[in-house]
């Protein structure tokens, strides 16, 4: 049998070796196209309106809308309030979710399922429930009266439409803890328990195991879910509108008020405020991806076989 044998040749690939991954981009096209066209396009149009390039009141390019937005005496107070609500609600729900996920890790299916109960509930339903529960004439106030702990609804602390936005915070905790917990439970279950066992064998106490093994492995999951929740709360409109303080108002409520103002000239200011709000949220994504890329350098993604 004739046999042709080649001497071994080591060779790096010529240029043709790297085929252009057109197939991947083609598959991405619908999603990226729709999101780009709607979200990106919308943002560009808003930008053009805010500087007066297009719009109802002729087309004279100016930055007066931004000037009006930034000099609005309420702007800084609204921004502070929005950040306060988003930071406190996200921080608390993240910490409590980590605890709840660890509690549920070994609990049965029914318990996990019961803790997901608020997941499919619309925010507006939650708002209605919180109002009827926490308002001065709400169910808790009535219960305390029945127990003789308060003498009238005047004695009950203001928890909705209050200056501290307690109602808003409680609503977000109620709605977002099950969401983050659901994600963290999935992350926890994908962690090989052998790591924790190994740490235990090496002498780690339960607290040390959690702090040095479990928590670092949950890091990406915690960052991701808290990013989604922070973005959502920071941009939320109906919750602070219906449950929050009347003055100051959060940025989205401020934008809405300016947009629906009878003075049509305030529209450009509303859009400018909206753009500022978007830029702030974009900065959050940048900060997040920086945090994640810092963590990825020394960490391998956990992936199934």
């Amino acid at each position: 049998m004739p046999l042709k044998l080649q001497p071994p040749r080591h060779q790096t690939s010529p240029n043709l070796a790297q085929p252009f991954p057109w197939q991947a981009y083609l598959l991405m096209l619908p999603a990226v196209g729709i999101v780009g066209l709607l979200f990106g396009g919308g943002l560009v149009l808003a930008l053009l309106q805010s500087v007066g390039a297009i719009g109802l009141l002729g087309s004279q390019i100016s930055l007066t809308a931004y000037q009006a937005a930034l000099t609005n005496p309420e702007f800084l107070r609204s921004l502070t309030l929005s950040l306060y609500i988003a930071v406190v609600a996200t921080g608390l729900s993240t910490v409590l979710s980590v605890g709840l996920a660890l509690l549920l890790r070994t609990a049965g299916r029914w318990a996990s399922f019961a803790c997901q109960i608020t997941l499919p509930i619309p925010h507006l339903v939650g708002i209605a429930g919180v109002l009827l529960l926490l308002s001065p004439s709400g169910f808790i106030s009535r219960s305390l009266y029945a127990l003789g702990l308060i003498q009238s609804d005047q004695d009950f602390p203001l928890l909705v439409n209050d200056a501290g936005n307690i109602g808003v915070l409680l609503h977000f905790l109620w709605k977002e803890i099950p969401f983050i917990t659901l994600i963290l439970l999935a992350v926890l279950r994908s962690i090989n328990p052998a790591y924790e066992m190994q740490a235990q064998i090496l002498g780690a106490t339960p607290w040390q195991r959690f702090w040095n093994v479990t928590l670092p492995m949950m890091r990406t999951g915690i960052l991701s879910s808290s990013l989604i929740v922070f973005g959502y709360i920071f941009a939320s409109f109906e919750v602070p509108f219906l449950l929050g303080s009347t003055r100051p108002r959060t940025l989205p409520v401020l934008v809405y008020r300016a947009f629906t103002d009878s003075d049509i000239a305030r529209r450009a200011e509303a859009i400018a405020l909206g753009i500022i709000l978007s830029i702030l949220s974009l900065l959050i994504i940048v900060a997040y991806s920086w945090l994640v890329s810092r963590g990825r350098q020394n960490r391998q993604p956990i992936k199934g076989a």
Partner: protein
Amino acid sequence: MYKTVPHSQSLMPHLHLQDLTKYFPGVTAVQSLWLEVQAGEILALLGPSGCGKSTTLQMIAGVVQPDSGTITLDGQILNRVPPERRDIALVLQRGLLFPHLTVGENVAFGLKMRGVGQAEREEKAIAMLLQVQLEGFAQRKPSELSGGQAQRVALARSLIIHPKLLLLDEPLSALDANLREEMQDLILRLQAQTGVTMLIVTHDQAEAVVMSQRIALMFDGCLRQVDTPEQIYQQPCDETVARFMGGVNFFAAEAHGRQWTLSNDLTLLSEYDHHGSIQVTIRPEQIQVFIEGRSQANTLPATVIANRFTGTQRRLTLAIAPELTLQAWVTPTQDFQIGQSVWAYLPPTALWYFPHSTVPHPVQVS
């Protein structure tokens, strides 16, 4: 024991790979590969991981496109034929049964794709399961099977469509040692019954040796040697091949015809005629060790410096000269003391050589 001679010795090879080349970003996965497989033959494509054997398999199956070269099966050029119309079946590691289908549905999958009716499919699937000794398993889910059973279902699933070529990717490597032998027997028996041409891809030289009639050895994207298992063992084409096949004894020597002189002036007699610098090799299990000397050529005085028992063998390290040691694997019934003086006999027929150069010399072909 089931190894059979190829069914038809036609002039045209059944599977013919001509000048097959595949580049991946940064590496040449397969470099100008030529290979012929006869109808009914079992050929093993052997090599370390990353040598390009899996890429070759994927090109034959049609899921990876070669950058150049042609693949011909049964006289038909396959390069532009989609995988589902190549008549080439694939058995991947661990069987890879579809988890959402029952065992019976898995076996009948290929028939369903060909539009065969339900009743006929079920009947043929059950018959096929019988052939792999899994009668009564049709309704089970793949998750309920053991590794060996899953592998057998995968075989049945591939053979039910009567492929022209069966590709097996590391078929035994995920199995336990004792299960391996059982599977190996089954594969060879099914091959004998159906006469299907088989190409086995593996990194395990033991698997290649027991399963195939010929071995094609691949390193770094290139084919190094294509021969019967015996020849690859006895007459490797270079040191890399020899070491991959478990060779451990290598000495520099000067050949003067059939007289080969080692560095310490010991002279060995060989069957091969050569002149110049060479590398001598001998398989460790071919060396015979005696306590008493014999007046026979190629018998060298030696000292035992290590003795390791492996269960089926006794692996001795023998010092022939100050800087010359030799591995000899003898039967475990022979026992030796460390430091004991013995005689090592290197049969002339077992001695093999490569010229001292990086380019492999032409191999004697069967």
